[in-house]
């Protein structure tokens, strides 16, 4: 296991380096730091001195990859690429354009993000599995056909609609919870209950349809036929045999997104005014703060790689036929 994790870690490094290089190319080669400075200072009537000042203040005044005037190893380390990109490997994200420490912001914003993302993940999984089981139990009947139609209809509705409709009905018309906002501490449940409910409902259509097809595939396997031949009741087959075996692909599939929960949901957080990482990204995009976007891209890809490794481990744990080698 340790051996496997070590190899996995070594495998992750080139991928992270690739992500880093790609974002660096996007942010610094396609757009030079001069362009960025002009973007922030206004496109017209900007003196060269003002641009140089902005670049110095934000640390973009060095050469991109190679510094010929510096001494020794400084030739490679005293560059924008080292300062802005490679530093991220030791989780040093630097400062955003308004001068705040990005690492500190991420720490304070992770809490509210998780407070929404975790319940949505757990409750959503439970709801979708229950719906899927219900449809499988009544497979071939009108209830099943109606349920599948409903699921297709639900997944054809834009996610924005669920948010806007939920906000309007529950918060504005019925005044059950505040429309948006957040407070720290225990009282925050009033603010997160609606976003959680809306996100779960928005996911029911796609999720339950997918899980239904997984369960149906299990239903066609030989062990189910054997169980039927032994005279087990349909109920027992579904909940004892099919559920257990169907859960393997479902849970291992869910593990991939587990680390990414940390990133929060962009849409939900921005609509409901939750000060999490999702709304942090949106604010950064709208303020064109490239430092934050770069940091979040790096974190997101690192978490994705963690998720991939977790999936492999989960597989070997749930299915004894799979070995980590």
């Amino acid at each position, binding site marked *: 296991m340790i051996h496997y994790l070590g190899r996995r870690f070594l495998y992750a490094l080139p*991928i992270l380096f690739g992500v880093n290089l790609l974002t660096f190319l*996007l942010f610094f080669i396609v757009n030079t730091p001069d*362009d960025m400075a002009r973007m922030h200072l206004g496109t017209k009537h900007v003196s060269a001195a003002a641009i140089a000042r902005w670049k110095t203040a934000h640390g973009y005044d060095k050469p991109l990859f190679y510094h010929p005037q510096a001494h020794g190893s400084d030739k490679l380390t005293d560059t924008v690429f080292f300062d802005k990109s490679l530093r991220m490997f030791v989780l040093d994200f630097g400062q955003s354009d308004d001068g705040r420490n990005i690492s500190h912001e991420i720490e304070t914003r992770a809490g509210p993000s998780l407070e929404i993302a975790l319940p949505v993940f757990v409750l959503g999984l439970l709801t979708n599995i229950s719906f899927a089981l219900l449809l499988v139990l009544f497979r071939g009947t009108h209830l099943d056909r109606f349920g599948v139609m409903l699921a*297709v209809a639900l997944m054809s509705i*834009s996610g924005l609609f669920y948010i806007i409709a939920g906000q309007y009905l529950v918060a504005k018309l019925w005044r059950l919870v505040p429309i948006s906002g957040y407070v720290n501490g225990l009282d925050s449940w009033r603010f997160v209950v609606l976003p959680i409910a809306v996100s779960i409902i928005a996911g029911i259509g796609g999720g339950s349809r997918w899980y239904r097809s997984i369960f149906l595939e299990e239903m066609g396997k030989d062990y189910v036929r054997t169980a039927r031949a032994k005279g087990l009741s349909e109920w027992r087959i579904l909940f004892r045999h099919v559920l257990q075996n169907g859960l393997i692909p479902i849970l291992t599939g869910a593990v991939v997104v587990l680390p990414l929960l940390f990133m929060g949901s*962009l*849409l939900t957080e921005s609509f409901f005014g939750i000060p999490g990482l999702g709304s942090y990204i949106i604010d950064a995009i709208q303020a064109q703060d490239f430092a934050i976007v770069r940091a979040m891209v790096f974190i*997101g*890809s690192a978490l*994705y790689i963690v998720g991939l490794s977790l999936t492999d481990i989960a597989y070997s744990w749930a299915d004894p036929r799979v070995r980590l080698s």
Partner: protein
Amino acid sequence: MNWQPVILWTDGLIWLLVGVVALTLWRKSPHGQLHEASVRLRQMPVAMTTGLVLFLFVAIALLDSLHYRAALPAHPGVGRQYSVEVTSVLDEILQPLLKYKEKTYSAPLAKHLYVKQNVTLPDGKIVRIYPLLRIDDIRRQTGSNDIAHRAGRGVLFGISFAVLVAACAASWLMMRRQCGIAELVRQLLAMDNRLPWRSMLLTVALLGTLTAVLAELAGAFHVLGTDKIGQDVLYETLKSIRTGVLIGTLTTLIMLPFAVLLGVSAGYFGGWVDDVIQYLYTTLNAIPSVLLIAAAVLIMQVYIEMHPAMFDSAASRTDFRLLFLCIILGVTSWTGLCRVLRGETLKLRELEYVQAARAFGVSDWRMMLRHILPNLYHLILISVVMDFSGLVLAEAVLSYLGVGVDPAMQSWGNMINAARLEMAREPIVWWPLAAAFSLMFVLVLAANLFADSVHDAFDPRGRQR
């Protein structure tokens, strides 16, 4: 010529796509399995009805992709001049909707403005009332023009259109099947294994009636109301169709060459080629796609602002942004199909007929083109159709986030974005939002149902169940 054609980048690409699809359909497919599957697809009522709905959407998008610049009124001594504004054939068809521009919001089918305004009466007094709409002029001129009357006429038109289509279809079928009318009706009612004529005719009738009613009502009303600047909402939603359809189709057009070339060569060659390609798609997959899209679009915005000389008109600038969005969505979405194709090629490579071909000394290139690729067509088709609805939904979300299409472009995402403020008004303005959501829902639902049918018909594994 009193107009000058304008071919925007996306126009050219979408018509190219139409040409390619038409060419493939026209050339009889030599491949047995694909032919069987398409016959199966044609027998599915759901596939055919949703296909008709999709066809209507695509037709509107295509009409909206024929752009031109109209000639300005001639002045003596000056050569022919063309308007700077780029219009499309759809604009020409929807001209009646544009004729009466109101001051601001008005509810669907309303006679008055939604907002009180100062109006000067003929006797010079100023009162604060809900003024009559400009479009109300039509009713005052023509007299008896209430909603029920116009809607009834629309239904009548629709039904006669449906009867006409049914008659044409029936006479064509009688000619082809060499039978009388009684025999044909018997055959159709028996639901034999041919095209599901009954459901298709019903769909045509419904769509025709809906169009006729809308057209009739639009003659004297703003059927879906007007927006903040008094623009007809029906016009805006219809114009948004092009954006949605283009993003759904052009993205796949851009992504396909990457996915197919890289996926097949990774699976076929193996070794270091496989390693490099796998590294490439794992890296791209690792970046959260929304962030990659946002980053790329931000950079493109900076690029456009730094190079204003490259774009001669507003239309070409918004068009470039749309194309760029398609490219970015394509770059982020090819990995899924690439992985599937790689896996399938790995399997095919070991099959006996490929081994035999290799023993005959067939070149690698020919092998991939003639022996591997034709066996991947069904996977490619399924993935293209499945991706379409997701892309249409993604456009709305991205435009809402501010990294989608140009804010000046008509799109459902932009309409929803604007509606955020309208929902906060008192009393609320709900119709632009409702219009955008319902049209998007119809398109995505039809696409999803059609994709399911395609999946059932073309996936050999799905059939056995």
